[in-house]
């Protein structure tokens, strides 16, 4: 018997890394899962790696577009009949620059990817969940949702902003059987960090990519990076029926980096 038997989850950006970890954990706990990504080939590959079968499906789309946030909800309901758990997980550092050098276009990309995508997906999912009086919204924020590092003003600002959105939404729907929480992972060496980390490192004041990883590890009490499994376990807990009394929280999975 799984903790999520009979539940249906949608995860933006779920083909790799944190979203993928959530997808695999949800499947193990008995849920049906829709994952999402830009690239249909990578999506097909991810489904294959996760064992395929009737409990998992892929929805192609760029999380930076509203059509993706709306589309994954519609697709999930069409495919599996309902949506119980919405993981607004897609996001990342698109541009690194100090504030005084950041262009409007770069700023807008960060907002679309990390903040607007969460708003669009949350709004769409809530419109489905509210009539059913049940649901779980889980937003992937970051330690940078509470702290700030140099060179990533758009990322830090948008990851802070989703926490405000999450807290307000939790109050909106608090009596309707729907919880809204955020998970704040410390740095994890995911594919996306491997891709964007080398460029971020310099802008963030680290000597190189290894220096960037070391900088994050040193901030944590555990002096190491986190893992996708640690985030996925927290997501399973927040998605479970027993978590109905947990809402509006900023759930740290950061090895003791944030002392609050």
């Amino acid at each position: 018997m799984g903790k999520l038997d009979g539940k249906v989850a949608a995860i933006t950006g779920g083909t790799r890394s944190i979203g993928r970890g959530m997808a695999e954990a949800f499947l193990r706990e008995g849920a049906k899962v829709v994952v999402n990504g830009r690239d249909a080939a990578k999506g097909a590959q991810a489904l294959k790696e996760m064992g395929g079968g009737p409990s998992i499906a892929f929805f192609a789309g760029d999380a930076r577009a509203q059509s993706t946030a709306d589309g994954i909800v519609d697709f999930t309901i069409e495919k599996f009949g309902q949506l119980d758990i919405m993981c607004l997980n897609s996001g990342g550092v698109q541009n690194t620059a100090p504030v005084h050098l950041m262009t409007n276009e770069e700023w807008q990309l960060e907002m679309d990817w990390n903040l607007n995508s969460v708003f669009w997906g949350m709004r769409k999912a809530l419109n489905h969940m509210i009539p059913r009086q049940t649901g779980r919204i889980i937003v992937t924020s970051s330690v940078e949702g509470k702290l700030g590092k140099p060179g990533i003003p758009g990322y830090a600002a948008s990851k802070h902003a989703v926490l405000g959105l999450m807290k307000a939404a939790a109050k909106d729907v608090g009596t309707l059987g729907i919880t809204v929480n955020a998970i704040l992972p410390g740095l994890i060496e995911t594919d996306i960090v491997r891709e964007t980390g080398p460029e971020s490192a310099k802008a963030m004041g680290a000597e190189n990519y290894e220096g960037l990883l070391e900088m994050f590890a040193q901030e944590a009490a555990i002096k190491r990076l986190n893992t996708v499994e640690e985030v996925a376990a927290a997501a399973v807990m927040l998605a479970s029926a027993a978590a109905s009394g947990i809402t509006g929280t900023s759930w740290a999975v950061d090895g003791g980096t944030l002392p609050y």
Partner: protein
Amino acid sequence: MELQGKVALVTGGTRGIGRAIAEAFVGEGASVVINGRSAEKGAQALKEMNAGDKVHFLSGDVKSREGCEALVKGTIERYGRIDILVNNAGGATGHAPVVDLEDWAMQDALVWNFWSTFWCTQYALRDMLPRQWGRIINISSVEGKHGKPGVSIYVTAKHAINGFTKSCAQEIGTQGVTINCICPGAIETDIMRDEGPAAAQSMGLTYQGLLDWFASEAAIKRLNTVEEVAVVATLLASEAGGGMTGTMYSVDGGTAAY
């Protein structure tokens, strides 16, 4: 089975939050020592839990260093070691506004909630650190983040637990041992029924008024449940909980937004 083969001590585990945590841990495969002051309530709890040799009762009071030492040692004697410590015992009597507060009430609340957490943690760490694995879970409160009038003894003691937890996490972070707080909202447990009326009086409220106040502060507009706390304790105690430490996890229906 997330806690297969693990050994846990839950102080004050015969009823309420501690009992729910003990049951959840047994359900995930752990062997659990529960504790309380009354041997009679302990026997009753063992009977109700019906978990055979997976659960053991140690009678004792956490309000002394010797009492805490005996609980940790008793756990190690019974099951060979201690992997998970839940510092759950606590409460407060003698509530009054600060201007009228008597010393004994503040002393007693600090010993019951905070000193007991320190003592049990210290003895547990002496078994956990050499083995480089451990989970310490301190049951704080939403009042460890907020403050209500008339109950400063409880609020102060719970805030102290939070500070202790943050500092200790930094000391032991690289040694496989995590320490966290769970901050539950109000739950109508036996101890709330016992102590709530006096706390309410000190706050100028009826008991029902006190419960209503807590519920109205939450986004869910209801009190919390012991099961909601137990599911978080299970997560923090698990292998995957190894990446979470030094944190104050709210289980309060959206009351403390931080």
